[in-house]
């Protein structure tokens, strides 16, 4: 989730601020995992990022990164599934930023990258946090794409939902499933509280002003 944040910001900025040929195509590809059945997304990842897939071979050769049937693959699957939600949230808040404030920052000597860092980013902070929470929730609940792409290997690619699923498939696994359910509850609750706290801190000045 943290790794995909810069990409999310970049894509959201491009979609919100730039007009270019093929924009709707990019928009479509980004949002595809939202509507596609997760199993299909997982299968697409398998054939492109698997050891024999073009992207998979590229990453293995250039940086020795292997995705298929590894925890990295599970992370990639979660990132892909959560990405559209993050982009959506960031893009919406970017579009609501008053461009005139950015102009004002420009007249005060701030170059465009500085304008983004000192004005735009703080103003969209609450949107970014909301996007990250959505992305995180989606990633934690991700089941279909992960199990298709990297299977369900205990200790390597097993995620919370797939572990719970495994427990429910064996007799006497209720206790284990319940334990993991509790863990999920605690993590989700903690994430929600943390996001609330972050949003209130970051949006403190911004939200009152609106």
């Amino acid at each position: 989730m943290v790794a995909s944040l810069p990409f999310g910001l970049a894509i959201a900025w491009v979609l919100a601020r730039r007009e270019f040929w093929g924009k709707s195509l990019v928009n479509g590809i980004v949002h595809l995992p939202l509507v596609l059945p997760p199993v299909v997304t997982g299968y697409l990842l398998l054939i492109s990022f698997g050891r024999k897939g073009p992207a998979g071979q590229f990453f293995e050769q250039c940086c020795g990164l292997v995705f298929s049937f590894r925890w990295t693959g599970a992370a990639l699957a979660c990132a892909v599934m959560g990405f559209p939600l993050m982009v959506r949230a960031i893009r919406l808040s970017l579009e609501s930023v008053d461009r005139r404030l950015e102009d004002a920052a420009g007249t005060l000597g701030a170059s465009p990258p500085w304008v983004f860092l000192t004005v735009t980013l703080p103003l969209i902070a609450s949107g970014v946090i909301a996007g990250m929470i959505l992305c995180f929730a989606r990633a934690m609940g991700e089941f279909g794409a992960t199990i298709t792409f990297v299977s369900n290997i205990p200790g390597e690619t097993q995620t919370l939902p797939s572990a719970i699923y495994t427990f429910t498939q064996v007799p006497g696994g209720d206790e284990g499933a319940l334990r993991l359910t509790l863990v999920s509850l605690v993590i989700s609750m903690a994430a929600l509280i943390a996001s609330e706290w972050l949003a209130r801190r970051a949006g403190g000045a911004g939200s009152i002003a609106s």
Partner: protein
Amino acid sequence: MIEVAVAQSLGAFALDVDFKTDGRFVALFGHSGSGKTTLINLIAGLTRPARGRIVIDGETLVDTARGIFVPACKRRLGMVFQEGRLFPHLSVKQNLLYGAWFAGTVDKSGAELARVAELLGIDHLLKRYPNRLSGGEKQRVAIGRALLASPKLLLMDEPLASLDDARKLEIMPYLERLRDEAGIPIIYVSHSVGEVARLSDTLVVLSAGKMRACGPTLDLMRRVDLFPAAEGGDDAGAVILARVEKHDPDYDLTTLVSRAGEWRMPRLDVAEGKDVRMQIKARDVMISREKPDNMSALNVFRGVVEEIGALDGASVELRVDCKGETLIARLTRFSVERLQLAVGEPVFAIVKSVSFDRRTLGSGWQDLRASDASAGAE
């Protein structure tokens, strides 16, 4: 020295302006749609002109012929916008120092910040956030923010337009102090004749994207053709330079002396002996052939008709020279014909004291007198 010669078209609207000035407080005056905001955005670098050049103090900011375009962030021109545009996520102090930080002029001791905060009367607001400021306070912070970026020129796009009359009056003295003390030339966009008459030393009049006149404010305010009634020029009128002579507490009157003679106005809040400028609205000046004796109006000046404006429509502007002081009078065309007024005729100009618009009462006119003298020498 400010040199601007730009052309820009936006749909059906075309801006084509060319002026050069040494003014310290240059007002870009025009009604909405005259292109003044378009022009100031071009100077600020927020938009590019189709063609033309902009040179400030010898530095070329735009020259389309030579392919020069300095981006806004490198121009070092402070801009104050109509709506303030303070950063909502930063405190007043952080807002004020935003530009200084990029200009590399943050003063560790805080002396500069303290000086500007004192100049604008915002020293007690530094810890607040913009959402907790009144409209007038916001605008003063915006002016301070632009000032602290140590600009070579301060651009102001109708900084008072979004405020009510009381707030305008609250900020005006600060603008005067800025003009007289900050030492930075100002370009000030406004559609209010009163503001322009009170603050500016140089005036650029825009109309439908074209420049109609450019010159010393005193001279242009004395013209009979620039602010016609038909174009909403209700507030047209000459600017008078005067000295406060004494206050009369019995009748609550203030006596002022100008070249034309003695003026008596409802008590003005200015110390005795101070120099002021005030605009006498053309609609508040009456003309009489004979010296009126039994009359309520307190200000009667002997003068000579110098120029009569265009004789069409209901009203006509008249320029009257009163011993070297100029007054503009607006009369009906009917009256002009009935009194058989003509250039060179002696008349009496009558100004009703109570109708004086005290919002146009301004301080500091040394520069104006200089421009007046040079205009006389021409």
